[in-house]
């Protein structure tokens, strides 16, 4: 899917100036002493039916972006500060900003955005059988269905994710990691969502199983027309499944564009360094020069002024400290947050 075919009617989710700050408490009275800017003013769109890969190293805020979109940050840490807008576009053109919805109003949009988790062991309730795990969301979001219809739908979903129907009576601990991940996918599909946030869905799996699950997910996307926000740190996996790739660094988005362009011809110096670290499976091909960045990631409590990457950037200039760089179009939809490339 090329970006030029994406007009505004195909937008599924519009993230604008999203900010997520976690307060840090300290002292005897547990006062707020600082805040971690986990996500600092990022904007991007997710289009219908596309897979948007989101990459970046640990702690760069990519998981927080996913959790902000499904609107569960408040449940995890009640005093989190979330600002900006996450506008959900329905097929009939109705637009809703999810950020400021109350828990009650959010409930009707819960079925539209679902999530697949990294750890296949903690993502399933071990006290419930597979049937209970998959039927629970159906019971809740389609209360008009009869018991038999729900049961049929559970079987159908299990078959869709490549599990045998007789597995329905079993409990999660009787399955392998890959099978458990398939159960998680079936649970996410049960509400008939438009968007699934995939938070490192295969990084806990064996490489051979990774390929199966990735291909299954891609097939399901094509069949149901769902979109994925595919969060991962394995760049070759992201390149394989994504239509577009976004790169994050320290809570900021530094580059977003077509998958091939970002993967083979990154523009931002951080993306270049990150992508040069992808292991080459072919030992004869050593044409790529590895770029090793100087220094460590700055403390997210005390981010550098201006461009957050400037302390490690090979092409940094004095004026980089002045203001945060804006995303600039470098042609064919590739947006880069650096004026010097």
């Amino acid at each position, binding site marked *: 899917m090329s970006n030029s075919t994406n007009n505004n009617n195909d937008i599924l989710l519009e993230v604008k100036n999203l900010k997520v700050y976690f307060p840090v408490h300290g002292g005897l009275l547990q006062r707020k002493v600082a805040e971690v800017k986990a996500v600092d003013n990022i904007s991007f769109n997710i289009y219908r039916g596309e897979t948007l890969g989101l990459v970046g190293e640990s702690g760069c805020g990519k998981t927080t972006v996913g959790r902000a979109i499904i609107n569960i940050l408040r449940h995890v840490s009640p005093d989190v500060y979330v600002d900006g807008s996450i506008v959900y576009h329905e097929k009939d053109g109705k637009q809703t900003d999810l950020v400021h919805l109350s828990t009650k109003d959010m409930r009707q949009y*819960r079925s539209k955005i679902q999530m697949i988790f990294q750890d296949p062991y903690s993502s399933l309730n071990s006290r419930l059988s597979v049937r209970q795990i998959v039927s629970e969301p159906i019971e809740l979001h389609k209360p008009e269905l009869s018991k038999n219809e729900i049961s049929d739908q559970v079987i159908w979903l299990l078959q869709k994710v490549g599990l045998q129907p007789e597995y329905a009576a079993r409990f999660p601990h*009787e399955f392998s990691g890959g099978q458990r991940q398939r159960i998680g996918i079936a649970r996410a599909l049960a509400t008939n969502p438009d968007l699934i946030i995939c938070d490192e869905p295969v990084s806990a799996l064996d490489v051979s199983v990774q390929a199966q699950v990735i291909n299954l997910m891609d097939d399901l996307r094509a069949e149901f027309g769902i979109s994925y926000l595919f969060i991962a740190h394995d760049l070759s996996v992201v390149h394989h499944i994504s239509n577009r790739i976004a790169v994050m660094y320290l809570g900021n988005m530094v580059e977003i564009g077509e998958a091939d362009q970002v993967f083979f011809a990154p523009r931002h110096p951080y993306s270049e360094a990150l992508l040069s670290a992808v292991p080459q499976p072919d030992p004869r091909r050593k044409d790529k020069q590895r770029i090793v960045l100087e220094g460590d990631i700055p403390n997210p409590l005390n981010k550098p002024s201006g461009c957050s990457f400037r302390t490690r950037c090979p092409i940094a200039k004095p004026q980089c400290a002045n203001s945060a760089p804006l995303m600039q179009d470098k042609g064919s939809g590739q947006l880069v947050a650096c004026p010097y490339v």
Partner: protein
Amino acid sequence: MSKPTTKTPEESKPRNESYGAFVKRQFYKKRLGVLSVYFISFLVFIAVFSDFLANEKPIVAKYHGSVIFPIVKQYGVSLGITSFEKEMALASWKELQYDWAIFPPVAYSPETTDKNIFSLQERKPSANHYFGTDDIGRDVLSGIIHGSRYALAIGLVAMSIALTIGIVLGLLAGFYGGKIDILISRLIEIVITFPTFFLIITIVAMVQQGSIWLIMGLIGFTNWTSIARFVRGEVLRVRGLDFVTAATALGYSQPRVIFRHVLPNAIAPVLVSAAFGIAGAILTESALSFLGFGVPPTVVTWGSVLFRARSSSASWWLAVYPGVMIFLTVSAYNLIGDALRDATDPRLRN
């Protein structure tokens, strides 16, 4: 199943097994734990049928030409539905002129005194009083049989109170966190600092009219802290797991998330703690009764039988028999707790 000698652990593992079934299967591997369950079941049997096992009234008798069931009738009398005939209510049940009568195996009620007993020699365990009598002729075995009711009831009632308070407060603190957590945690710390035993003694001494319910309540209201802390810790752990995030993302209501997803995954260590708590409650009641601060003298518990041993040191049977029962029961609950802990711990599988 057809070739048991070559079964691998994988093959022998039953399929479609819920967590409850798994814990049950693991529990049955613990011989001492199972034995303890049998012992407690036996105790429950004795407690339920104690009126028919030790009673001065006959189970069934023919008196003045009519067949009567005095023990059964006693239940009606206690409820106020019916009443005994005058001569029965006044006379000693043993001395009535029955045509024939079948007495329980121990033909003495715990509170009735055997008036034929005068010397220490006669109070010793004998064919008449299997476990002997105390200094005023009350049968020890009858006391132990009827005391089993209180032993079991104290454990269950006190622990139910403690569990209710502990689970509710622990859930609130762990699930909601923030100010609620700080408040409840401080409350737990305050209650922990109470010297429980002396607090109970003080209150019982102040109330003067002590009753078995007061003791149960006091033990329950002072022993919920460890349960609350267990639940809080477990809920904190479970709340951060992905399946709870998934439940929220799926739009489940908060009670559903708490009671279907969080609590079942947080409850296992609490059950272990509850088993130990029952043992502790029984021990506390026995200690209170032994010190004379427990139940009123009309109520016969194991501890109060033990209490009588203090004044007559030559009567070893007053100390040994109730002591052994307390020891066995407390040990049984502790062993059940131990076996439960092993059975619910996933790291100790196989």
